[in-house]
């Protein structure tokens, strides 16, 4: 279980270092505040989970936001009924999202290709509409599910852990406060564990089987291999990751709303994974970080900042540039996102990871070339 090749081990160590030093290297980029970094980490978990399904098996699910939503609701209910501790909350979030994924996956996986996408989409939209309408007693409809001071919290009362402070109770871990940096580091640890798990899955025979299903499912079945249980396991695992991410979202901010389950959210998740690189280990993480980063930075830029940025230009030109650019930032940053996404799918289907690999290869080749020409010249001389 813990056996690792050297390369994998290095990768994990580097990844851990990068995640834990986030506050340091993000501060020059202007994003080193805990709330945003928690988002980075949580959406990275979400994307890693999605990648286990889409990256390994090639089944494009358009309903993963539903699992995120289920995770969030479960976590908040655990805060309300059991305890403000995050461990039971996350535990139940993962379990419930897993059960939910088992149910949806059981039906959806009977079809493949576009039919699978539409089935998951239909299930997710169904849960979204239900969360808004009939399930209001559970989900609290449009207001979103909130915790209250006088919730029962059975375990907390049993153990006699009262909320000493006035105001709203906050989620904690064994009595530790989870606000600010400690909250970020907890989430970061969870992310590292998730990355480790996904590394193991990628390297395991199970992961290999999933990749075989992606490349040729029919042939897999001809060899006497029952692909169904493998697919279902992958689906459930990826649903559990999404549930975990949803639970963590509720831990950092104890409110759960149905808008998290909307299918455009699933679309965003797909964007993240594609942007970084489908089927690679670090791709989804990079994609999630980039999108969340630009969401924050781009949407905060306003015309004043643009004006000062383009000050060096002549007057008329400056105003033109500002008007044009202002369409792409602030409120309109989704436009940038959509454009980048289209360009990525058209020109770089493997995402940024493949892009960097290609660049590296080109560099290597260009540095190889002179040497090879020298050697060929030498061989010509000899002959």
């Amino acid at each position, binding site marked *: 279980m813990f056996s690792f090749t050297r390369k994998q081990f290095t990768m994990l160590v580097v990844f851990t270092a990068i995640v834990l030093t986030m506050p340091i290297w993000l501060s020059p980029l202007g994003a080193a505040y805990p709330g945003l970094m928690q988002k980075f980490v949580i959406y990275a978990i979400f994307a890693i989970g999605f990648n286990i399904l889409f990256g390994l098996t090639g089944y494009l699910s358009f309903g993963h936001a539903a699992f995120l939503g289920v995770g969030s609701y479960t976590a908040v209910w655990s805060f309300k009924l059991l305890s403000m501790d995050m461990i039971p909350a996350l535990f139940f979030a993962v379990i419930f999202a897993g059960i939910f994924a088992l149910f949806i996956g059981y039906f959806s996986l009977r079809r493949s290709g*576009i039919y699978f996408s539409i089935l998951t989409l239909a299930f997710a939209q169904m849960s979204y509409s239900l969360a808004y*309408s009939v399930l209001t007693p559970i989900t609290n409809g449009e207001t979103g599910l909130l915790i209250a001071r006088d919730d029962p919290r059975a375990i907390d009362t049993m153990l006699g852990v009262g909320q000493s402070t006035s105001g709203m109770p906050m989620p904690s871990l064994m009595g530790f406060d989870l606000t600010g940096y400690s909250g970020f580091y907890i989430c970061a640890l969870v992310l590292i564990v998730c990355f480790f798990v996904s590394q193991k899955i990628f390297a395991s025979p199970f992961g290999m089987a999933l990749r075989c299903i992606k490349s040729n499912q029919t042939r897999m079945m001809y060899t006497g291999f029952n692909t169904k249980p493998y697919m279902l396991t992958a689906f459930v695992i990826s649903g559990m990751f999404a549930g975990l991410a949803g639970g963590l979202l509720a831990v950092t901010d104890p409110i759960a709303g149905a808008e998290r389950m909307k299918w455009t959210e699933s679309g965003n998740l797909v964007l993240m994974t*594609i942007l970084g690189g489908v089927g690679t280990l670090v791709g989804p993480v990079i994609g999630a970080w980039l999108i969340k980063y630009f969401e924050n930075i781009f949407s905060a830029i306003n015309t004043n900042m643009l004006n000062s940025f383009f000050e060096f230009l002549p007057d008329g030109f400056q105003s033109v540039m500002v008007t044009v650019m202002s369409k792409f930032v602030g409120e309109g940053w989704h436009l940038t996102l*959509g454009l980048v*996404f289209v360009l990525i*799918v058209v020109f770089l*289907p493997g995402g940024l990871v493949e892009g960097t690999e290609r660049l590296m290869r080109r560099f290597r080749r260009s540095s190889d070339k002179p040497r090879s020409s020298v050697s060929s010249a030498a061989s010509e001389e000899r002959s």
Partner: protein
Amino acid sequence: MDAILAQLLNGLDKGGAYALIALGLTLVFGTLGVVNFAHGALFMLGCFCAVVFRYLLTIETVTIDPEQLSPWGAPVELRTPLVQDWLGDWGAFLVDYSVPLSVLFAVPVMLVIGIVMERGLIKHFYKRSHAEQILVTFGLAIVLQEIVKSFFGANPMPQPIPSDLRSAADVGAWFGMEAHTLTYPTWRLVYLLFSLGVIGAVFAFMRYTTFGMVVRAGMADRETVGVLGIDIDRRFTIIFGIAAVVAGVAGAMYTPLLAPNYQIGMDFLVLSFVVVVVGGMGSLPGAVVAGFLLGILQSFASMNEITSIIPGIDQVIIYLVAIVILLVRPRGLMGRSGVMES
């Protein structure tokens, strides 16, 4: 009985919209083999064709009338649309009928948009997997939405029904029932007839013109048609344009029923995909039948008698039907066998 008939009518006009969008989706899928997630965005662009058309018609001059004073003593502003200035009553009529007339505006605009879209982007994706087609058209849909948002803002923009058509039609009386037992908003009836007309036109075009014949042949066997010396790609491009037009006019006429904002396409997209799947991928009659069927089902499910038995059924009935159909009969109601079956 009356209630049931009323719900039937209710479902038909919504079904008309579903059928039109699904028809366009199926045309594109059947000819080009592309799963177009940007089709909802085309519907939305059609809606905004109506908005723009009305905006252009109602560019107005503001003059202050010094003779008249409003009750609070301020001078009265007289707003006259330029069109009315030039054409008199005719202009007023144009402004009043801006929504139906905007269809004429939407047709060329959507045709150009569709052809540009196909030549510029979609054509590079014929050989790629369906997942990649979904992704790129999804991205395109986001871009189109955001462009519209940056011009028109995020608020819904309601469009008025022409004043002659605002009344309710006494549908019951036409069929020999007592007067006023079954009335129905005239505009919805107009929409229903309009959608039937467009559907009929598309079918006739495919059935009785040489162009349609070639396209149908191309749907069956693209290579052979190409070998016969016909530039099938160009015809398919035009078919994409036609699909965009169908979605666009469906949107333009729908604006009085539902005030469009930039997201309207996404909501319709999911539903119309469900419709396509229920009808059967690649089957034109299937898309139309399923569109009307699901529209009617949805309106029946939203009856009080039904929702009191199964609460929330009106929200999910379409998805439920889709799930059941996909699981039991994956090729859909009228799908050809072998199309995207696994």
